[in-house]
């Protein structure tokens, strides 16, 4: 293992951090933040794939030099948009949950749901 692969290691470590956060945190907002970290690791991964050592940014100049592969950047631009969109929906849902339940802690929500469920089945 050399430092060449450092980017990939970092991206996978980030990914695991995000993943761990999603699973372990009970707060919906924290979950979303970790989800973003998780997604961003994929961005880093792509950029590393497209990177060429010592090459310039892919903008046309008069002097021809090595460019890094622009395609992953373009792809990631789209991926960022997708990420932002899902983040927006996630935040909106979180706001609505806060309004309906009065909390965004997962265990409290589960408890409220359970109570409601019990009430419903008792009514029957």
């Amino acid at each position, binding site marked *: 293992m050399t430092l060449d692969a450092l980017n990939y290691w970092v991206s996978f470590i980030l990914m695991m951090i995000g993943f761990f956060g999603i699973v372990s945190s009970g707060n919906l907002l924290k979950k979303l933040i970790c989800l973003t970290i998780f997604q961003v690791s994929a961005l880093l991964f792509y950029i590393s794939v497209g990177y060429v050592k010592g090459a310039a940014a892919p*903008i046309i100049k008069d002097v021809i030099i090595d460019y890094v592969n622009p395609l992953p950047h373009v792809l990631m*631009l789209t991926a960022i*948009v997708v990420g932002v969109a899902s983040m*927006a929906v996630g935040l909106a849902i979180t*706001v609505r949950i*806060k309004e309906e339940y009065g909390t965004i802690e997962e265990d409290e929500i589960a408890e409220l749901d359970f109570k409601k469920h019990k009430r419903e089945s008792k009514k029957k």
Partner: protein
Amino acid sequence: MQEIVVLRVVVRLLLPFILMYALYILFHGEVSPGGGFQAGVIFAAGFIAYSLVNDLASLQKILPHFVVRIINALGVLIYAGVGVTTMFMGGRFLGFSAFRVLPADGQKLGIMLVEVGIGMVVFSVIMLVFYSFGERSGDDS
């Protein structure tokens, strides 16, 4: 709300430049870094800055909610419409070469129109997000 004169003045001063810069990024996007996405966000940032120093109501007087929504729809329509137009001009969907005799010119024009559409969509979406959160009566927090 406390009046902060410095902020008001600075924002008022900066606002035209912010909008101008957004337009620059939009129309210069095909030869330098930039494009519809960035332009839209910067354009929206200008308006948001305005509402931060004044208040939401005064912004909505200039830019009502439904106008933003129409801009949003219009943006998508421009984007898709350009594609469809090329279709009617005998090309493929988004085949801008059909616009002009020289394919390169056609591409230039097509990309520009599409970028305008994207800019409008991004701008309006950001504004919509801002509005719909701002309009909620925040009784908690």
